């Protein structure tokens, strides 16, 4: 049917495939009504819990004591931004691997693997869906916070946050490829992924500034891209010190290249290993 397919033609067809993969993920998602309920309620519930947590700890949305360690009194804004960005981390790290695991359990993975579309195309389709899902939840958190709480997060500087988040996503999906490779090798890695996700949350300034961490842990946090993304976004949203935008863009680009390259190689190794051992579809 397409013996003469060239590299440009193939690239265009792979892009069409990403669109169909996105639609398939969306259709499957819509067929389970509880997911829609979860999506509607989750942003609302999560910002309320952050608000009450702040009120319980410092009795206000701001804190002078917090300024001593974080360089800003805006405690609530600090943790809402951390929480919103962390949604991308957990979705990206676990999203593709979880989706591939689901295909494995459903029995459809071999049908995907035997198709000519690149594995990266399949991952990009899944990542697009997950990324938009995360973006929706994060945006709703910021919107609801601005409407319901005494903070304003829908400021023009939020566009910088979009750019930084976009750059962060590539590095996160590089990590996602690594975990997808681990799914092919070890199958059930949910506990391991949760462990890594919680470790990243503990080591990076999601809910508190780096300055409260022991020096060795704070040093290790410098090797995690989320640290820079949080610092940049908070800086441009007016709650923390910041380097120039160019600095953050370069650092995140470097992480993107390193993590995507490492993640792709690990996935390729795991895929070859699974195909050599006949374990693509085994549970």
């Amino acid at each position: 049917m397409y013996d003469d397919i060239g590299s440009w033609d193939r690239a265009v067809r792979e892009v069409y495939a990403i669109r169909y993969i996105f639609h398939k993920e969306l259709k499957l998602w819509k067929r389970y009504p509880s997911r829609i309920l979860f999506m509607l309620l989750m942003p609302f519930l999560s910002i309320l819990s952050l608000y009450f947590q702040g009120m319980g700890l410092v009795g206000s949305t701001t804190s002078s004591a917090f300024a001593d360690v974080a360089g800003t009194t805006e405690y609530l804004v600090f943790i809402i931004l951390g929480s919103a960005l962390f949604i991308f981390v957990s979705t990206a790290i676990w999203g593709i691997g979880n989706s591939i695991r689901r295909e494995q359990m459903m029995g459809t993975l071999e049908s995907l693997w035997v198709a000519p579309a690149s594995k990266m195309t399949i991952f990009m389709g899944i990542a697009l869906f997950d990324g938009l899902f995360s973006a929706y939840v994060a945006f709703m958190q910021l919107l609801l916070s601005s409407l319901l709480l005494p903070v304003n997060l829908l400021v023009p500087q939020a566009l910088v946050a979009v750019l930084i988040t976009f750059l962060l996503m590539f590095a996160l999906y590089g990590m996602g490829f690594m975990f997808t490779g681990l799914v092919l090798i070890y199958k059930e890695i949910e506990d391991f992924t949760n462990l890594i996700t919680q470790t990243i949350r503990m080591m990076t300034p999601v809910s508190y500034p780096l300055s409260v961490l022991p020096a060795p842990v704070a040093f290790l946090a410098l090797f995690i891209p989320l640290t820079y993304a949080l610092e940049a976004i908070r800086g441009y949203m007016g709650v923390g010190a910041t380097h120039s935008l160019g600095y953050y863009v370069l650092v995140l680009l470097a992480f993107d290249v390193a993590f995507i390259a490492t993640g792709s190689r690990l996935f390729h190794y795991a895929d070859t290993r699974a195909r050599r051992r006949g374990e693509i579809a085994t549970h």
Partner: protein
Amino acid sequence: MHSGDDAAISITNLSKVFTRGGGALNRMRGKGARHTVAVDNVTLEVREHELFGLLGPNGAGKTSIIKMLSTLLIPDSGSATVNGWDILADPFRVRMSIGLTLSSERQLYWKLSAKENLEYFASLYLLRPAEIRERVDMVLHDLGLEEQQDMLVENFSSGNRQKVALARALLNDPPVLFLDEPTIGLDPSFSQSFRTLIKKTINEAEKKTILLTTHYMEEADQLCDRVAFIDRGSIVAIGTPADLKRSIDEKEILTLALSSAPVEMVQRIQRVEAVSHVECQERDGRPILKVYTDSASSCMQDIVGIVTSAGIHILSFTTAKPTLEDVFIKLTGSGLDV
């Protein structure tokens, strides 16, 4: 086809051994790795437009061969080409050239409709949107699924799910199809119509080369231009069903279902003149005796006499021409229902 010769599939000395439990933890426990030979030095060719069957019991290595040819499994040694493309050197072109159905019922998304499944998979076969619409409509029509196209796959019968899987395998109009146990789990009447669909529509009308695996000898007999018997990973015979059946010297087979089958009695039957070979199998907990002979009429009375004199009841008695299963049993010493 990519290459000049008329072999749509060419396999040379293909081998696969599965190793399990060879990890460091097992070594520390003093447990060694277990090796299972799945495919052992298999060589065969499937000609263009041929419907070729791999016939053998469960675990014989049929599915492993199909998975290697479809790039899902990497062979340990040997080589193979599909539609002229090497499975290791050019897996992308191989995937573009093939359609595959697996024996699992869960190879489709049950929460999507038949049409949604097909549109999705067509995109993974790198069809453009206009091509997707055209091909999906065409395969739905050709396989008689138009009326059910918007129904969720979870509401389909097993047979119609297998039809959707076959439709999916045809989306990219591939020259080569791999069908792994296409009628397993289907009721007899649907199996029959499905076989007709494979033979008449897919193979003869659409001129697809088909390599199918089965452990149903009637299926292989009815469908296949040629058959390879595979047992414990090795090919033990290749030929047309008619040639394979002619390869048995004996012209008739007496099949006796008995209340029991003591060894001495079987040995006495074996010594009857005109009996060349006796096989004892078990089916539904009852011993089944298969007596291979040149002439059933000349030895039938002697056999009945031996059985009844041993106080054993004959539950059923049939004579028949050799089937593919009989050839398989003669060659391997075991049946297909393993």
